[in-house]
């Protein structure tokens, strides 16, 4: 293969494209869309994080400003965890707007994450959202198909392919040259989008972890470069092996509709159909029943808590709980909290396993649908996938548990038992000592682990399509 021939062919394809009306309209539209989605993504990221940061600070301030009181009052006063958006959510909104943004953290109770943007949206949300990633995943592939469907098929129809081969250009050179030309066109979109994104990462004041964000950015860039290489190869191959340009166009449009719009949604729906999820009230019933079986702290005659009492009493060699060296109420609540949290988390884990099974139906289709692979990689590294949300929820729950148990500990230590002398409140300095909720994003190594399947699929696809380009090119029909 001769490099200069390939470059010449590639340049020719680009030049021709810029002469066509489709490209001009598409470019204009894309510039508008990129600007709009960059602006709207940034505004959304900035405003939402601004509000949430402000409220998180306000929450901490009011926590610290509480006067002296009984620690259990503070356990009920509780706190809030507000979900902070990752800077890369400017790029890919993912599930961002479908998951809750605020959790109330209080003793005895795991609250849901509420106020998702979806819960405050009109039916329009169902049409999807515009983001830079959405343009790259959905709109640009269509454009590439528009620009590339005719590349080889048209040359064959107008017999220029025969001429090219007659002039001593090898079939491989033609295919690779065309691919390179189309890929360069795709790069215009990818590179400009990622340049805009880079600016955002660099100026994001919210993001303290520049390094991690840049690493995620690097992975995203690499994945999209691969994705478009695959896409362009598919386009060229379809064009090369179609009888006419029209046939190539119809095939490519069909591929786009099927793989980008219909199949992912249908598979998600099938996953849901195969693995139905229980409703919240069913899970709450199950949790309540389990707790009653294990030990109901509200029931004065409960065997679990009676046994607990007896063992504590004998361990400390006293006959009445009032004589224990610590506050017995605080002790029972600490045990109850640990018990109820364990049961709740067990059911939550089961629920998440059902979700995972539902999602896996679509996730594994990455091996037959490269769009699914890039979709999942893109969301995960933008910090807007389901795992990122779970990571936040886990951290919030851990903080809630810590808060409740710390308040129980304070109660055990400083509040006298019933009937004993001593203050019923503790100093407000304890509130200030308790650290605020600070969320750190998931480490990138875990993101890699979560998306291993998608990454492997993407790599396999690139190998497959390149093999296709090189091997099948020799079979290219000239007429």
């Amino acid at each position, binding site marked *: 293969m001769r490099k200069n021939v390939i470059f010449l062919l590639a340049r020719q394809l680009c030049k021709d494209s810029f002469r066509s009306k489709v490209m001009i309209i598409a470019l204009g539209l894309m510039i508008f869309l990129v600007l709009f989605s960059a602006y709207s993504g940034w505004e959304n990221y900035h405003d939402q994080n601004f509000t949430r940061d402000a409220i998180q600070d306000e929450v901490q301030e009011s926590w610290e400003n509480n006067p002296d009181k009984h620690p259990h009052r503070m356990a009920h006063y509780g706190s809030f965890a507000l979900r902070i958006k990752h800077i890369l959510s400017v790029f890919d909104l993912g599930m961002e707007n479908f998951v*809750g943004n605020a959790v109330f953290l209080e003793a005895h109770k795991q609250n849901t994450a509420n106020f998702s943007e979806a819960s*405050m949206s*009109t039916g329009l949300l169902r049409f999807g959202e515009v983001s830079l990633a959405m343009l790259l995943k959905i709109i640009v592939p269509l454009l590439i198909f528009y620009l590339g469907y005719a590349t080889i098929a048209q040359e064959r129809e107008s017999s220029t392919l025969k001429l090219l081969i007659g002039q001593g250009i090898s079939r491989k050179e033609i295919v690779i040259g065309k691919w390179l030309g189309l890929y360069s066109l795709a790069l215009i979109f990818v590179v400009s989008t990622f340049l805009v994104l880079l600016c955002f990462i660099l100026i994001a004041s919210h993001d303290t972890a520049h390094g991690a964000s840049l690493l995620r950015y690097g992975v995203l860039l690499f994945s999209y470069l691969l994705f478009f290489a695959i896409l362009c190869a598919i386009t060229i191959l379809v064009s090369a092996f179609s009888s006419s340009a029209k046939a190539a166009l119809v095939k490519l*449009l069909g591929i786009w509709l099927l793989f980008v719009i219909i199949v992912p949604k249908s598979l998600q*729906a099938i996953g849901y159909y195969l693995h139905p999820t229980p409703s919240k009230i069913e899970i709450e019933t199950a949790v309540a029943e389990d707790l009653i079986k294990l030990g109901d702290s509200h029931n004065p005659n409960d065997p679990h808590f009676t046994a607990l009492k007896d063992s504590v009493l004998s361990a400390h060699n006293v006959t009445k709980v009032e004589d224990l060296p610590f506050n017995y109420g605080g002790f029972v609540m600490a045990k109850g909290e640990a018990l109820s949290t364990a049961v709740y988390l067990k059911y939550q884990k089961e629920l998440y396993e059902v979700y995972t099974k539902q999602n896996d139906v679509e996730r594994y289709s990455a091996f037959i649908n490269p769009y699914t692979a890039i979709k999942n990689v893109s969301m995960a590294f933008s910090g807007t996938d389901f795992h990122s949300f779970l990571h936040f929820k886990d951290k919030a729950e851990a903080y809630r548990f810590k808060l409740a148990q710390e308040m129980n500990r304070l109660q055990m230590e400083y509040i006298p038992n019933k009937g004993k002398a001593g203050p019923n409140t503790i100093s407000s300095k304890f509130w200030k000592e308790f650290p605020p909720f600070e969320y750190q994003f998931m480490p990138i190594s875990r993101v890699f682990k979560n998306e291993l399947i998608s990454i492997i699929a993407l790599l396999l696809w690139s190998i497959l399509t390149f093999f296709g380009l090189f091997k099948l090119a020799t079979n290219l029909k000239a007429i």
Partner: protein
Amino acid sequence: MFRLLFKSFFRTKIFVLSLVLLMAVGLISILIGKQYLVKQEKTILAAQEFQNNSIQRNLEYHNDDLGLLLYYLRFTLIKKPANISAISIGQSDVNPLLQAVTIRAIEGQKYDNDFENPALLMSGNLDLGFVIIYLFPLVLIAMIFNLYSEEKELGTWRIVAAQTARKATFLLKKMLVRVLFVFAVLMSLLFMASAILQIPMDQNFWAIFLQSILYILFWSVLCLWIISLQKSSNFNALALISIWVVLTILIPAIVNNYVMNTYQVPEALEAMVEQRDGYHEKWDLEKDATMTRFFEAYPQYKNYPVPEDEFSWIWYYGMQEMGDLAAKETSAEMAEKLQLRTSVSKNVALFVPTMHAQLSFNTLAGTDMVSHLHFLKALTEFHKNLRLGFYTKFFDNKPADTIDWSSYAAKFYTIKRDFSWFYVLLPTLFITLIFGTLGVLNLRRL
């Protein structure tokens, strides 16, 4: 003539393909609707059982302390399921079907989510509404885009032209055959949905029916208009798919982003904090700080004593009410903003048939945001009635078994599904007429 056209159409590959595709996906979407209804039923049963059991169990422990009993008890308000919602699930998967609330402050309870897989929420439900809005136009495009251009390109058009005096009529007839076929599939799917999902054929069903027909008609005339420009097959395919992308993906998504950014709702988070602080700070204040305002709101309870230096339930629930009161204004602002989001979206949708179809389907099925807002309002009212019903009972220190608990089973709320025929049908009809006229005018020059 028509018989021949039908015959030749039935022999095409695209006919078989689209029939199978639409029927299969349509049936799947109806089954998904069925599953959605079954899940609703199961949830409702579970909620009813949960409520009865928890009342029974807690009665055993806290019979002497009604105030404490009511601290635990949750009372459920359920949106009465209507099978028509399975056609257009809309926002009803994001917004909960029911809410089980205690008589403590409502503000912290009414926005609680149900559990749902966010990946599913993101990809959206594959309901019949989706099939009608997204897939039907695509099939229509696939059947019609090369109706004229192909004959021209294959050279058969000249033969046709030589044999018929009215070329435009011939083309229109050819198109009519295809559109009629799509209508037949559409109607049979809708009737199948009505049968399988047991949807009563009431006004709302017929409104969805007519809206669907109009919507498909809109796409038909749009295709007609593109054909009438007499460009090549490739141009038609590109143009029609681009229009489809713009109408079903880009414009709605852009409007959605715009609405979301322009009308942000920080009030939601603010109200949540205000409610908590408004309630909790009262623990550290004199009891008067709570009771004065409480008695202002409920002068009928003025004569109940509030012990100064010990805990009392009248004070406790008074404090809870103060939480709601503190968040009241912000919460109302939030509801207003959400209403605003809806009205802006609806207004833009008047000009975009895809958006209008989706929003009007949701309205007709009672699965839009407005019906959820109505539900939240009803929930607040429900909560108020519960409180007022119980207050005097435990202010008087009555034991719990003096209350007739059987009247406190889960309650149903009927969603309002009223609509205006003009709103549903006129916008699409108008746009259809415009494109129809343009198309026919162009065809006359054939």
